């Protein structure tokens, strides 16, 4: 590869090759973990740099005043890999008869309309940036992706996968990656990356449900069902989609595809290096949470569950770029309470509890008060009871209370000056760690566990609330 082909112009003092060697050869788990985390940070920086330096598909548009409203443009790469390719259908142009072009055009429009109508969002960046899509990318290319500036769709091989514009949820999924880039900036690695993928699946599924007018209980909750080719519809294999939000791990079990690896609980969390630390794999856990919340709340999934998730994942200063599942649980519970009330917050908390995620700010069972929380991937054993964020009178605080402080005086319902500092009466409603976490303003979010020796530039890249819409 010539230097001219290298598009990741990020130079770090510790080369990735050295870090990978340490990962392979280190005997101490802590050393191996440090190298893995450092490599993840450098990869995330490269990803950010790559996104920022992805070629502007329409540089000439930068000279023009940006119009308001939906502005789409679909290009064709004509089986090549040069982006954006040749302009085929600009905004306002009639259908072309090319299914890939027209599906990309219509799907982008449906996603824009959904974001605008339901969340009041003006497109990907909140300022009506042009929605650029390129179809017919590569030869038999079995994929679709967001490159930081535009969507790109392959035609599939025609046997295992059909063209990737066939699935409205996939189109919505790709556009949602753009929204994430302009809002939370979730790093594409391990749990933050799985949350990035999860949010994209949620938006993709909601766009489809909204377009079809489906209620949560009637939706199929599948991603990419329309992409599967004739090879995957032959027995003895089973394949219905790329992923299922309703039943992670069941979308396929096929000789060609293998078995759907998505877990439905933290105890089965994937901890390998493939797939950027399992971003498409572990997204199954929060996907299931969202499905359960949507069905439990009833009605259309975008009306309540969608709004909760939208606020949690896009509100400035809320979700941090390196958020863990625990942070996402905390933020979604908080937003449910803020937007709707205690009942909704409890439902969200219960859904996270069912998949084994303890919200940030809630002490994990078996840990001491004030004990340092473990790193994000090392989740505690599933709780047997919900965190009960909205139930301050529940028994959890008793674990933090010294037993000797229980007042013995008969009829003593009020604390006195002597006992106030020593004990709290049973009738009091002590603040739990969960309530403290819920009471904190969004700006005081706790950062996700950071790897050692994080580059100073990472802190400077945290999005400012005023910059992101």
């Amino acid at each position: 590869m010539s230097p001219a082909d290298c598009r990741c112009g990020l130079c770090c003092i510790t080369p990735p090759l050295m870090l990978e060697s340490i990962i392979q050869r280190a005997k101490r788990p802590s050393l191996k973990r440090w190298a893995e985390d450092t490599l993840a940070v450098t990869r995330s920086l490269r990803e950010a740099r790559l996104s920022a330096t992805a070629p502007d598909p329409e540089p000439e548009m930068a000279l023009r005043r940006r119009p308001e409203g939906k502005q789409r443009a679909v290009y064709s790469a004509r089986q090549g890999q040069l982006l954006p390719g040749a302009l085929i259908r600009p905004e306002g142009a009639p259908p072309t008869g090319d299914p890939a072009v027209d599906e990309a055009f219509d799907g982008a429009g449906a996603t824009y309309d959904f974001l605008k109508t339901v969340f009041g969002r003006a497109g990907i960046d909140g300022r009506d940036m042009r929605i650029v899509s390129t179809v017919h990318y590569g030869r038999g290319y079995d994929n679709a992706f967001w490159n930081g500036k535009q969507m790109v769709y392959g035609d599939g091989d025609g046997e295992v996968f059909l063209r990737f514009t066939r699935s409205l949820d996939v189109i919505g999924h790709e556009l949602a990656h753009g929204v994430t880039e302009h809002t939370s900036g979730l790093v594409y690695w391990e749990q933050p990356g799985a949350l990035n993928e999860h949010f994209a699946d949620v938006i993709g599924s909601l766009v489809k449900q909204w377009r079809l007018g489906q209620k949560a209980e009637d939706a199929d909750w599948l991603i990419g069902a329309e992409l599967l080719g004739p090879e995957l519809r032959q027995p003895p294999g089973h394949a219905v989609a790329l992923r299922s939000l309703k039943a992670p791990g069941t979308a396929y079990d096929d000789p060609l595809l293998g078995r759907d690896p998505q877990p439905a609980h933290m105890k089965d969390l994937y901890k390998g290096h493939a797939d950027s630390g399992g971003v498409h794999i572990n997204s199954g856990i929060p996907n299931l949470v969202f499905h359960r919340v949507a069905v439990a709340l009833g009605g259309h999934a975008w009306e309540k569950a969608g709004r909760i998730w939208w606020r949690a994942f896009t509100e400035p200063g809320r979700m941090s770029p390196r958020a863990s599942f625990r942070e996402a649980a905390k933020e979604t519970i908080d937003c449910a309470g803020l937007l709707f009330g205690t009942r909704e917050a409890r439902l969200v908390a219960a859904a996270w509890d069912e998949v084994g995620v303890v919200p940030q700010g809630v002490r994990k069972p078996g840990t001491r008060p004030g004990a340092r929380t473990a790193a994000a991937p090392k989740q505690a054993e599933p709780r047997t009871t919900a965190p009960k964020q909205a139930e301050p009178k529940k028994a959890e605080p008793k674990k933090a209370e010294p037993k000797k402080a229980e007042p013995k005086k008969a009829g003593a319902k009020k604390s006195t000056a002597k006992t106030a500092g020593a004990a709290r009466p049973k009738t009091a409603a002590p603040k739990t760690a969960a309530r403290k976490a819920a009471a904190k303003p969004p700006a005081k979010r706790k950062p996700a566990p950071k790897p050692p020796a994080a580059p100073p530039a990472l802190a400077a890249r945290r999005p400012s609330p005023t910059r992101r819409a």
Partner: protein
Amino acid sequence: MPERTRRGATPPSPLAALSVLRSGGVGGLLRRRTVDVASLSAEQRAAVAALASSPPGAAGPDRFTFEVTITLADGTTRVVHVAEDAVPPALADILR
């Protein structure tokens, strides 16, 4: 000027085995394949050898990533991670 050689320099061990694990993509599918090294051209062998010292690239949303396991004739094994954007043209048919 006569050609100079380093004392004690040993020629690099030839490529013995090559396997690729592709992950990522919008489907997040894991696909493993073993490459027949005997069918590789000289250019492809050189590109494989250069992989270890090339920048790995960045895995953007829904891009493919490749875990390449290179086994040399002397038994040494090296695992290299390559992002889709960083795949050398000579290896485009192998890393796909």
